[in-house]
């Protein structure tokens, strides 16, 4: 019996070249760990073999990123030639660490982005800053400020100031169960809350929990009475 590790099976299954469709054209990502020979073979099959007709058609912008691989000038030239042979390919970028690749990862966001959970009320005068995304279990009161380099989710009333993507990430979002912020900031944009004819939206988030006499539903602000160990962690 052979046991294959997850790692092995992955490299076996994944082709040495992956193709991503981007807004401007096609991005070819060459596996930087695969041997040069495999890459050339794979590309030849792809671009000149049976499947080559897939890539025929109107002109298309092509971006090739071969990653941080060790290769000679000849090897690189060999790969480039394969792309130049296709009539309808317009090679826009060819190299490692291309902007096309960076854009790709920027849009998809790295999965390992840090996230935090803040339990408690962000009170007037408190300023909290988080790296990555943050979930606030509690309210952000008027005069309180919460900032994160990523997204902000408030499971309570957002009535203070929230600044998502505070280091310039314009993709960041701000969410709240009750949305009545004093001011909103995303990256370098500043805005005030959408006004709902003067009155804030009346919604309350609730949570269910078990008691001796059965199930109970209460406002989320009382979650600490069920989980005393959650009683706020004051910010330093």
């Amino acid at each position: 019996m052979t046991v294959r590790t997850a790692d092995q099976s992955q490299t076996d299954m994944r082709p040495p070249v992956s193709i991503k469709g981007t807004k401007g054209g096609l991005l070819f990502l060459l596996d930087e760990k695969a041997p040069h020979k495999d890459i050339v073979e794979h590309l030849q099959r792809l671009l000149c073999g049976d499947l080559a007709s897939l890539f025929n058609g109107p002109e298309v912008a092509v971006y090739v990123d071969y990653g941080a691989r060790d290769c000679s000038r000849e090897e690189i030239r060999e790969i480039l030639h394969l792309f130049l042979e296709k009539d309808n390919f317009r090679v826009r970028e060819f190299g490692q660490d291309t902007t096309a690749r960076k854009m790709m990862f920027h849009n998809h966001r790295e999965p390992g982005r840090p996230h935090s959970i803040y339990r408690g009320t962000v009170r007037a005068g408190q300023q909290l800053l988080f790296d990555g995304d943050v979930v606030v279990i509690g309210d952000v009161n008027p005069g309180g400020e919460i900032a994160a380099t990523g997204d902000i989710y408030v499971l309570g009333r957002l009535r203070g100031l929230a600044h998502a993507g505070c280091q310039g990430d314009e993709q960041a979002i701000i969410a709240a169960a009750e949305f009545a912020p004093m001011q909103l900031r995303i990256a370098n944009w500043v805005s005030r809350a959408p006004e709902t004819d003067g009155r804030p939206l009346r919604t309350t988030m609730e949570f269910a929990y078990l008691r001796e006499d059965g199930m109970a539903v209460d406002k989320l602000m009382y979650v600490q009475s069920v989980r005393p160990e959650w009683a706020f962690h004051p910010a330093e």
Partner: protein
Amino acid sequence: MGTAMVITSGKGGVGKTTSTANIGTALALLGKRVCLIDADIGLRNLDVVMGLENRIIYDIVDVATGQCRLEQALIRDKRFDGLALLPASQTKDKSALDAERVRTIVAELKQAFDFVVIDCPAGIEHGFQVATAGADEAIVVTTPETAAVRDADRVIGLLEKSGLRSPKLVINRIRPKMVRAGDMLDIDEIVQVLSIDLLGVVPDDETVIAHNIKGEPTVLRNDAKASQAYRNIARRILGDAVPLMVLEEEPGVFARMRRLFGGRR
């Protein structure tokens, strides 16, 4: 071993001193030994509200600097055996006290009294730090105004940071008519924003001012609504489950408050 409670608000003029005098006196009325401390150095006024001004010889700064013993500075209230006052200094300023000395004084008083009630100065600077230093519990006083609630929120944040974990809330000077007309924040709204336990609601009552002038805490009178509210607060501090009183003949308010009070149990 007694409990030390600091009464604070952040904003000035919301009724810290009046609340200190009345809660302290109400606890004494219930047979507890109570010592009031005026920590508002330089702006001494708890003694005036208590009507004990003319008996001051030494004050808290004299105790802290070692110019007299603690017992010499304590003023026994002639109306109750168990009630005493440690007055603030009128002439020295706030820098005359530091947190460590106040902590020692409060710890000493806790040996002899069931409750040590500390009247905190307004603001969040040195005076606030000193007044809260020796406290085990905190009562935050606010009025139904946006500015007072905002300052109370700030103060609660600071109290939690300094380890005074679950401060209690007293909403002072509420006017049911204005609340109903929507001209004043309602109790529900304030408790939701501050999200701490509500200890009591004191109605706005002109007789409080009249009693302050006479140097007589309102709780000593039976005729005032505020008096009943402060007595209820004292009973809740002792652990009795007293329902919030009806401020006016309006069923809506009562139902709302009962729900609030029941929600935390």
